[in-house]
Structures are given as C-alpha cells and as structure tokens.
C-alpha cells in the first residue's frame, strides 16, 4: 500500500493545535478573556464546515479520514460548539477561573478525541486517548488554587487513568504477540486465521477493561462521582458528554474492525458488567442529594445503556450505541447548561432539596430541566426514549431477550432519580423567591438548541439514526472493499 503524507487529511487537527497553542501564547497579554471564547467558537464552527470538505484517505497507516470518523467528529465538534457557550456562561461568573487556557486545553482534548476516533492502529488509538485525557486532568484541577478538592479529584482521576493506560498497553502487547501487527484491519485478518482465538478474546477483555475505566462501567466507576463533582460544571459536561462519546466511538471502531472474529465472545464478556452497570448506576443515583453526583451516577448507567448495543453484536447495534451516546451528549450539554445557569444564582441549587418549588420561580429553566430529565429517564416524546428503544430493539434482534428485559426493568428503576428531581421542582413549595440573573444569549443557544434537538429527534428519530446507520454500512463496506 502506498504510504501517504497528505496534510489535507489532518487539516482540522493542525488547526486545532495551532489555535490552542495561540491561545496559550497570547493569554497572558490579553485581559479580556472574551477573545478566547470567540476564537474557540469560530475555530469550531469553521471545523464543523471543514469536516465536509476533508477528503477521505489515510495519513500514514495510522490515521484515516472516513465515513465513520468524520461522522463522529461532526458530532464531537458540534457538541463542543454548544459546550463552548456553556464554558463562557460559566466563566463569566467565575472570573478566578477565567483563563483562555481553559478553552485551549479543551481544544487539545478535542484534538485527542478526534485522533482517537480516526486511529487505524492501536498505538494511535492509545495516544489519542491519552491526549484526550491529559488536558482533562489539568482542567479538573483548574480551580486548584482555591479548592484542594479539585486537585484531589484530578489526581484520583489521573491515577485511575494510568490504570486504564496500563491495561490498554497490556492488551496491545497481547495483540501484537498474537497478530504481529497493530494495524486494525491487519489484526482482523491475522486474527481471523488463528486456530485458537483465546488470546484474542483475552486481549479484547483487557482492552475492554481499560475502556471500562474510561467509560466508568461498574465496578470501574468509582472515580466518576468524585471527578465529576470536583470539576467545574462545564468541564463535567465535557467529561460526561464529549469524552465518553469519543472513547466509546473509538472502542466501537476497534471492536467493529479488529475484533469482529470474536464478536460473540466479546458480547458474552460484556453482558454481566453492563447489566451491573445499569443497575448500580441507577440505584446509586437514587441516593444522591448533590445533583452533579446524581448525574455522575446517571452517566454511569447511561454508559451501560450505550454498551447494550455492543451486546447485540450486530452492526446496527453498534450504530445505535453511537446514536445513544450522541443523544446522551446533547442531553448532557443541555442539562449542564441549565446547571451552569443555576450555579450563577445565589442559592445553592446544586443540592436537590434546594431546588424545591423552582418551577414557580423559574418556569423556563424548570421546563428545560423537565425535558432534559425526561430524556435521561427515557420518557416517550424525547430523543432519550427513542435512543433507548433502538438499543432494546437491537438487543431483541440480536437474540438477547433476557438482557433486553432486564435492561428494561432496570431502566424503570432508572427513571426514579430524575422524576424525584422533577417532583422537587414541580410539586414542592417554594421557600423564598430567589434572586435572578439575566439569561443571556450564551445560555439560550446551548440550552435551546439541545432542547430542539431532543424533541425533534424524539418525534423524528429516523433522520439521525438512519444517518448513523448508513454511515456504518458505508464505512464497513468501503473498509473491506479497499483493503
């Protein structure tokens, strides 16, 4: 195969590096930090369009621009655009954190995400995930000077992240030992010819364990609530939304391309962990009084749901996994946009009991919360329901009826924590009229765009889901056709 160094393919990555380095360099000299917001926003919007014009192909053997990676990048960048507004909204009131570097580090992390989903070999995959994670360690510790809790959260996350890396390396080692290559497709072809696939299953096991840490599956999840709570709110949204989507997309790609010969075994491996994740995530969310902690556990459960698509061991199941994560990304951004607004008010609205009677004081914000929480709970007219529905459907088609039924039962439990929050907001009395802060465009854009998406995708789910499905089919057919 011809070895290519076509810089057009990595244009978006180069732009990301340049822009974020630029922000790092000039931040010291510019007092008004709005510039960082504007630059990041413009860059991301530009990249969002650029994605459509980047030709498909490979940069060296390890980085490929294809249907799959471009689609996922599209969602990642779109999510980041919305998230940048949330950042701005948050940093306006937390001047102590208001540094351009916050944006720059986020862009770096996004760079890692985009590399991880474009990776075509295991080393690039690993490096992409590291690049995705490292800026986040710093971002969680952003507030370190004022709050030691943040350093603690960051360090814990770092240690756990190291564990994850170790597991990834171990898996990579085994794969190299068995297949003599690290390129995804070659791994597929070589492993398909192996008489005994036990080692490959083992490698998949270790790899999935490494990813389980990043995705916070139970019992790998314990870092999640601490890290989520320790981080500033928009960064929590980044970890829960963008990071999870990127990591999961990378995993799906690996499983889809390299581990197809052991698909069934991988499914069996996942079943107990995934069911446990959904159950424990939902049950734990019930007990939480801090809303971010509650969302952290809910995020654990939702990662579990997303993995249900992998359990189906069919390509459409994989597609629905990505779809689910995309919907979860939108919902997360929406809900964290609302939380960011609430955090700006004087009251401590992060504790669920304090939200009492919010609907009377802030009807619009409460309504947004209602829709987002409904989507998380999987109540019908929202996208969250449809996404879950697709997953259950793929499970049933994949013949995993018992898993489907259990997951449905668990998801009934899972509705409780959200309904509890809504009950507090809508049914409980309002203790005192809270102070109000003007909303501003930076609040409206992320929250209403996600609201719109969630409702539209609940009513017309076919557009995005069939788009993703088609992407998968095209990707796979091209992948094996051009080998």
């Amino acid at each position, binding site marked *: 195969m011809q*070895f290519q*160094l076509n810089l057009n393919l990595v244009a978006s990555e180069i732009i990301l*590096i340049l822009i974020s*380095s630029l922000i*790092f360099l000039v931040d*010291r000299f510019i007092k008004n930090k709005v510039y960082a917001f504007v630059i990041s926003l413009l860059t991301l919007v530009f990249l969002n369009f650029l994605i459509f014009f980047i030709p498909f192909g490979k*940069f*060296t*053997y*390890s*980085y490929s621009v294809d249907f799959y990676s471009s689609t996922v990048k599209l969602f990642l960048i779109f999510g980041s655009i919305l998230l940048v507004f949330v950042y701005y909204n948050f940093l306006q009131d937390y001047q102590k954190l208001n*540094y351009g*570097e916050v944006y*720059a*580090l986020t862009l*770096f992390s996004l*760079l890692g995400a985009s*590399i991880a989903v474009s990776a075509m070999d295991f*080393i*690039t995959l690993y*490096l*992409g995930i*590291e*690049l995705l994670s*490292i*800026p986040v*360690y*710093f971002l969680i*510790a*952003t507030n*370190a*000077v*004022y709050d030691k809790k943040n350093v603690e959260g960051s360090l814990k996350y770092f240690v756990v992240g190291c564990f994850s890396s170790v597991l990834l390396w171990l898996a990579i080692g085994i794969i190299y030992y068995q297949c003599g290559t690290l390129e995804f497709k070659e791994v597929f072809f070589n492993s398909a010819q192996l008489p005994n696939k036990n080692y490959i299953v083992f490698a998949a096991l270790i790899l999935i364990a490494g990813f389980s840490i990043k995705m916070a599956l139970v019992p790998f999840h314990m870092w999640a609530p601490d890290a989520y709570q320790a981080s500033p709110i928009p960064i929590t949204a980044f970890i829960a939304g963008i990071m999870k989507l990127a990591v999961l997309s990378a995993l799906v790609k690996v499983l889809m391309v390299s581990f197809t010969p052991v698909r069934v075994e991988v499914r069996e491996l996942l079943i107990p962990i995934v069911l446990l994740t959904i159950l424990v995530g939902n049950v734990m969310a019930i007990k939480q009084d801090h809303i971010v902690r509650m969302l952290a556990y809910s995020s654990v459960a939702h990662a579990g749901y997303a993995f249900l698509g992998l359990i189906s061991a069919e390509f459409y199941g994989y597609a629905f996994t990505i779809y689910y994560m995309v919907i979860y990304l939108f919902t997360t951004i929406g809900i964290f946009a609302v939380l960011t607004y609430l955090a700006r008010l004087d009251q401590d609205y992060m504790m669920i009991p304090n939200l009492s009677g919010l609907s009377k004081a802030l009807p619009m914000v409460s309504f947004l919360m209602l829709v987002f929480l409904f989507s998380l709970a999987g109540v019908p007219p929202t996208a969250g329901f449809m996404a879950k529905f697709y997953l259950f459907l793929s499970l049933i088609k994949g013949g995993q009826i018992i898993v489907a039924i259990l997951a449905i039962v668990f998801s009934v439990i899972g509705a409780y924590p959200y309904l509890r929050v809504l009950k507090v907001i809508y049914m409980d009395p309002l203790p005192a009229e809270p102070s109000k802060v003007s909303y501003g465009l930076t609040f409206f854009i992320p929250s209403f765009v996600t609201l719109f998406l969630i409702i539209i995708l609940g009513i017309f789910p076919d557009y995005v889901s069939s788009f993703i499905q088609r992407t998968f089919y095209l990707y796979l057919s091209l992948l094996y056709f051009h080998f």
Partner: protein
Amino acid sequence: MSAQDLAFYYLSFAMILSGLFTVFSRNPVHAVLSLLVLIVHQAFMLYLLGSEFLSAIQIIVYAGAVVVLFLFVVYLINLQKEARFRVFVRRFSLGLIFFILFGFLFVKYFVLIFSMSTGLRTLLPIDPTSSQALKMMARYLFTEYLFQFELIGVILLVVVFGTVFLLRKVKEERVG
C-alpha cells in the same frame, strides 16, 4: 535453560520485586530508589531483547534524569526527618541482605553471559557492534510511525502547557 533465559527470568523477577517495593514502601525515598533499581533492570532487559539503543536511553534518561528529579522533588517537599533518614537506617540490614542477594545474582549471571564472549554475539537478536537497531528505529519513527511520533510531541506540549497554566494560576494568586 540457556543463559539468556536465566537472565530473562532473573530480570523479570527483579523488576516485579522492585516494582512492588516502589509501590509498597512507606518511605518515598525508598520508593524512588526501588524505581531506580527497576529502571536499571529494565535497561538490561531491553538490551537482552536486542535494542541496545533503548537500553542506553533508559539508563541515561530515566535512571540519570527522571529518577534524580523524583528524588529532588521528594526531598523538596517537606518530609519528616525520620522518614528521610532514621527509618532508612533502621531497615539498613534488610536492604543489605537484598543488596547482597541481588548483587550476587546480578554479578553471577552477567559474568556468565559475558564470559560466553564468543557465542554471545550470535545469540543476541541484533549484533551490537553492527547496530541496525538505531537506524531501523529512526526509519520507522520518521516514516511509518511519523504520526504517532508527532502525536507524542503534541502530548508533551500539552503537558508543558498544562503545568505552566496551573503554576501560572498559583503564581498570580500569590501576587494578586
């Protein structure tokens, strides 16, 4: 069991052991020193596997620079006096035993390996004297694995940026 195998098992064992020491020792200085032991063994392991270049790098960069930096850090943060010295002395005997044990094995097997001076070169995967390893690595790094190579550069850049960012905040807080 050939000499190479023996050396491999010894090195693996020693690496695991010193790794455990690194993790479990309560004294940070011990931990760093155990890490040093680990790295040295690792360097030999790399040599045994035929990449003498990496082996040398391992010694120079990790043992020579990184671990020394660790030691500096450990001494800079405010440790209790006894943690630095007394406990170290108290466990001196244990350390001596291990030193003798390791030293004995170390000397024994490496004398064994190097005593087979004629046969050894053919045993090694790559002949150290006509080193292709460095060239090969360089060629891979700048062609096939160029992307990963650059990527590592970016990661290091991010780490530097991040550290500078956190320290900048600390500094600005102290000033303002």
